[in-house]
């Protein structure tokens, strides 16, 4: 019996090649374009119609069925509303992570299962392994360290992960592009898709202004409390940001050419605090508090109970075995470089950011504390800290 896979196709090269590989591996493949957002934004034409046409063209070329699944309402409710709520609370949420959790690996997964799918697949750079001697599945970093997208996937539901194939998780981006070219997939050179999730930092402010009214307030230097300029609402700013600050004329005179960074947001009084002191305590920290912590691997569940500091068990002892035909490469043996000697975990504070060793202490209520040996640049509240042991993504949490 041929197994059925619904593959999310965005029109980009990664998901196109994913569909191609699944077809070659003999699955019964259905391409699906998830229509999550279609509205144009200031300075950004929403490319959904072109993306849809690109995805369909590839599906036709591959000779697979193709459908459009409309998730616009759910996306608006689960991702956009969440985003706006977080911004209003002064946080800087990551819509990508929420989109994966609620749309791609929930609604898309559920609908595929209703349609008697054996698996879903996406063009993410990530891998899935079955945990030996358990029914659990492990999320592992992609072979291409540059493209690894597990940072965006750490919150996806176990049930969906157990039925997910990441066809390009074993490939590097150049390999993916080369294959696309060889197969005459026209979008091999296409710019990477940037959905609404990904309006970027500057675009995000324009996006928010569509929904949130501006509220003028002061920009103050944190050390002196001097008013240096005015802003359009504290929620439009992110800790660490240095662009888009409306500093008045005196700025040049007092900042001796060095840029000011946002170091603190006073939501209550609508004040943005800035500093040019890169060593400011608000920028650097050795400790981060997490909330809404997700722990992925089942074998690690006990960790969430203790409240005591504990090292995470190594998945090495029970090495994962590739379960699907396309998971050719076993987990790398030489991953010591990314593993701490004392059993600590590694943390990633941004997509593609370096892995930093840390100790994690869990508390009862789904919160956790991360402690670092060296100071790290403090990420904005609402962003995610994702934890790893070797190549395995153990989960993560939302930075407070």
């Amino acid at each position: 019996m041929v197994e059925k896979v619904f593959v999310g196709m965005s029109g980009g090269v990664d998901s196109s090649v994913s569909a191609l590989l699944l077809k070659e591996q003999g699955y019964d493949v259905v391409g699906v374009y998830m229509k999550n957002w279609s509205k144009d934004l200031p300075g950004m034409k929403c490319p959904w119609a072109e993306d849809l046409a690109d995805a369909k063209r590839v599906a036709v070329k591959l000779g697979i069925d193709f459908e459009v699944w409309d998730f616009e309402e759910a996306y608006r409710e689960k991702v956009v509303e969440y985003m706006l709520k977080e911004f209003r609370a002064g946080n800087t949420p990551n819509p990508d992570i929420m989109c994966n959790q609620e749309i791609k690996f929930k609604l898309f997964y559920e609908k595929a299962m209703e349609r008697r799918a054996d698996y879903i697949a996406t063009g993410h750079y990530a891998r899935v392994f079955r945990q030996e001697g358990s029914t659990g599945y492990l999320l592992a970093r992609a072979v291409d360290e540059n493209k690894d997208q597990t940072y965006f996937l750490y919150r996806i539901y176990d049930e969906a992960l157990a039925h997910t194939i990441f066809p390009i998780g074993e490939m590097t981006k150049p390999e993916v592009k080369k294959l696309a070219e060889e197969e005459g997939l026209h979008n091999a050179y296409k710019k990477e898709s940037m959905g609404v999730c990904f309006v970027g930092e500057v675009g995000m402010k324009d996006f928010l202004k569509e929904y949130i009214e501006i509220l003028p307030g002061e920009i103050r230097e944190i050390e002196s409390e001097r008013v240096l300029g005015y802003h359009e609402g504290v929620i439009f700013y992110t800790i660490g940001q240095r662009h888009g600050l409306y500093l008045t004329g005196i700025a040049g005179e007092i900042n001796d050419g060095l840029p000011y960074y946002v170091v603190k947001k006073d939501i209550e009084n609508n004040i943005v605090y800035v500093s040019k002191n890169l060593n400011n305590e608000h920028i650097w920290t050795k400790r981060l508090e997490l909330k809404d912590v997700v722990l992925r691997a089942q074998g690690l569940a006990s960790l969430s109970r203790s409240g005591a500091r504990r090292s995470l068990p190594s998945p090495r002892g029970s090495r994962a075995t590739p379960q699907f035909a396309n998971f050719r490469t076993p987990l790398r043996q030489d991953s010591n470089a990314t593993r701490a000697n004392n059993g600590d975990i590694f943390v990633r504070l941004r997509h593609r950011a370096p892995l930093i060793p840390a100790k994690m202490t869990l508390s009862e209520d789904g919160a956790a504390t991360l402690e670092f040996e060296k100071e790290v640049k403090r990420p904005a509240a609402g962003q995610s800290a994702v934890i790893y042991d070797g190549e395995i993504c153990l989960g993560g949490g939302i930075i407070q």
Partner: protein
Amino acid sequence: MIYLDHAAATPVSDKALKAMEPYFSRDFFNPSAAYLPAKRVAADYERAKGEIAHAIGAKATDIVMTGGATEANNLAFTALDNQMRSLTASVLYLETEHDSVRAVAEKYNGMAIRVLPNGLIDLDDLKAKITDETMLVSASLANNELGTIQPMAEISAILKNIKIDRLKRGIKQPLYLHSDASQALNLLDINVSRLGVDMLTLNAAKVYGPKGVGALYVAHDVKLSPISVGGGQELGLRSGTENVPGAIGFAAAIKEAKEHLNGNRKRYAKWKQTLLKELRDYELINKKHTLDNFVVLCYSGIDAERLIYLLEDREVYVATGAACAASKGQKSHVLAAIGLSDAQIAGSLRLTLGETNDEEQIHMAAQIINEVVDAEKERVHG
């Protein structure tokens, strides 16, 4: 390449291109400037407008040049902005109109007139929906997805009787008839008096002229509001320096189209018959009352959009519906209006013939489409 989408765009004809060329560089002057070379350009521009007007039996002064048909359609609806109008002025439009009419009609709370299953206006529905408040009726001369030709003279006769009746009863509300003739301009012999229209939209891009150039014919008693204000060009309705090369190109193209009208129609009609004979397993959607170059087919059980991509691989270019709607992934409101099921709409293909085609291409196209349809059927049904 076999291009079968002339309803979406046409290449600029050699004559039109050649006529336009000097006005981009040598004769670049602003028609409003005072010196002689500029006045010559102004005269050439007026002459071009005269030729465009002549093609529809009108005069240069009846023509407002616009940046395409969409703008002309929008301008036509400003008749409702007229200060003299009663507060309750209303508008009727055909439900199968192009989006550029539907969207602007919606802005004015327009009400749609139904079409019959053959695509023609339901005249009873028109009569039923016209009230004393109705100020504008808009119906395209030929539909952009089906090529259906509307009985404009019949519509205008109905409106004329209503106008007479209104006058008898002392009602001052005017009643205008607007028609979008974008698709019909090079395929029908058009005369505004014979059609009985008060406003007519023209489009250069569909008649082998330049894109972004259109015109609105406006009868003398129609009062419109400017869509842009400034230097007062185009009778004050569209300020901005005139697109001289555009108007010159449009005039050359429309002149050429008129000269070859009958010959072209005969050729297209013959090619259409060839296609209908040589293609297999289709249902013809636009059977009657249609432009000679429109062939709308339905392949049941097939997703016609897939055919577009399969044909694209064979360098045959076709459409499923209006290019603008298709690119938004919307299902055709036109095909739905004539009562096609969702499955029929999904299986519908629009072929529009034109000057880039020849007889050999038509045979070839029929063969390639047959092959592609067979292959897709094989894929679906195994």
